[in-house]
């Protein structure tokens, strides 16, 4: 592709919000939709190229430099411990990462807590900070069902409204982190394509913070 800057967009819950934010920053994406099978496309000025990826893959592409920049949740960035720049907090996709457990469970008596999560590294760091020993069970989805089925005592997962937790008879025990989507940028791309990336950063920063 003959574009100057390649940007990864997250499939899933963030996609529409991310493209809307880009549009407000004057970057409209040609003929794309999340359902489109085509994975690569450009903006109308042909200045940016876009690739749709699963969020969990985005920091890997950006850290390696295969893609210059990306929009992805801070949950994923922290989990992968990605070594990238995070110049703009985009203030979309806001939610909390929490420890949750069945409403009636008393976790304080459990010596070695079993925790099911999609975020094993973040979970480990959280409990290590608390000097608490836990056994982590890595799952890929529907984590909130794990305690009911006896796989774990608690979970670490994202909550937006808390409704899913409630429906599954769970309560929030404590907060692990506040999550929101960020613009991430490859470290050498920031130097090699300084002008174009700085322009992108300024545009996004402006629509998020100056003219919301």
């Amino acid at each position, binding site marked *: 592709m003959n574009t100057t800057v390649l940007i990864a967009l997250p499939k899933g819950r963030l996609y529409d919000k991310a493209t809307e934010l880009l549009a407000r920053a004057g970057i409209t994406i040609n003929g794309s939709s999340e359902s489109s099978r085509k994975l690569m496309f450009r903006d109308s000025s042909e200045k940016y190229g876009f690739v749709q990826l699963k969020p969990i893959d985005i920091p890997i592409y950006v850290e390696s*430099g295969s893609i210059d920049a990306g929009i992805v949740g801070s949950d994923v960035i922290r989990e992968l411990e990605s070594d*990238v*720049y995070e*110049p703009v*907090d985009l203030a979309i996709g806001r939610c909390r990462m929490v420890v949750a457990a069945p409403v009636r469970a008393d976790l304080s008596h459990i010596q070695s807590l079993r925790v099911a999560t999609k975020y094993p590294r973040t979970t480990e760091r959280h409990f290590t900070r608390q000097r608490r020993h836990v056994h982590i069970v890595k799952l890929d989805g529907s984590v909130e069902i794990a305690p009911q089925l006896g796989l774990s005592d608690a979970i670490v997962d994202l909550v937006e409204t808390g409704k899913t937790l409630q429906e599954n008879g769970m309560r929030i025990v404590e907060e692990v982190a506040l999550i929101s989507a960020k613009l991430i*940028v*490859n470290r*050498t791309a920031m130097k*090699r394509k300084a002008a174009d990336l700085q322009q992108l950063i300024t545009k996004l920063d402006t629509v998020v913070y100056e003219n919301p």
Partner: protein
Amino acid sequence: MEQNVLGLPAGFRDVMFEEAEARRRIENEFAAVLGSSGYREIIPSGVEYLEVYERGKQGVHDRAIRFLDRDDNLLALRADFTPAIARIVAARLREVAPPLRLWYSGPVFRKTDRHRGRYQEFAQIGAELLGDASAAADGEIIEIALRCLERCALKDVRLHINHAGIFKGIVNSLGLLAGPLAEIRSAIDRKDMRALEMRLEELGVDGSSRAEVHALSRCVGDSQTLETASGAITNEESRAAIAELSALWRRLGRWQEKVVFDLAEIDEMEYYTGVMFTFLSPSHPDELGRGGRYDGLIREFGADMPAIGFSFSVDDLRGGL
């Protein structure tokens, strides 16, 4: 398992024919430039006590491939050349009149994250100039590195230069405790300017110091950047560092056009003590190599000697061709 005999462990590979020849050519070009400039080759041991790496870069120490010898000493495969050279200088070259000019080439081994497509063994080539703390030494090592790259036919190389003293000066003037300081450092390192601003304000850092941090985070560009920085930054330590960069700039002569001053880049800032630099090629996604002044390292081995050096990843040099 039988089938493993014909395979390789994850993260390793054989370097075949064209690639091996390309590596050899690069090594020969470096040897020619360095040899004719008074640098002498050394081949440090392939194995060290793990402790040697504890005194070098934190990130390298964490990734050293370690094992026990038959007396249960904790050893590591060579994970970096520079700490080994510091050890050699402290152990056996103490009595030699400085400056010492050394170069090296060979494999280094570092653990990588699983399934990230990265190799755990790669070829490094580099040089060190020890026992000379002058701006002339800074200029010499940068010029030698650029001459090696030119000789390898790497075009359009950019050199991003910073000085560890600029950020250290600002940090010292803020008088923060270790915890908040780590947060500030992390925000600058991630270029998260709004988080930086917010945290500085929460910490009660006064407006003029906040302005200094902010000014620094935007100081990227040509030699004009140094003037902008010295206009915005008032503490003595930072200003002395900026003056050193100006002196270096004047020495670089025909190489000046390749230089970008990048005062906002604080990666590995705790390791370096003076000038620090990164080499980039517009056509290659990874940096080609980096280097800088590390006057404290040899002291860690019981001798005291200023030092500056550079190292390149040979495969990245090939990628930048």
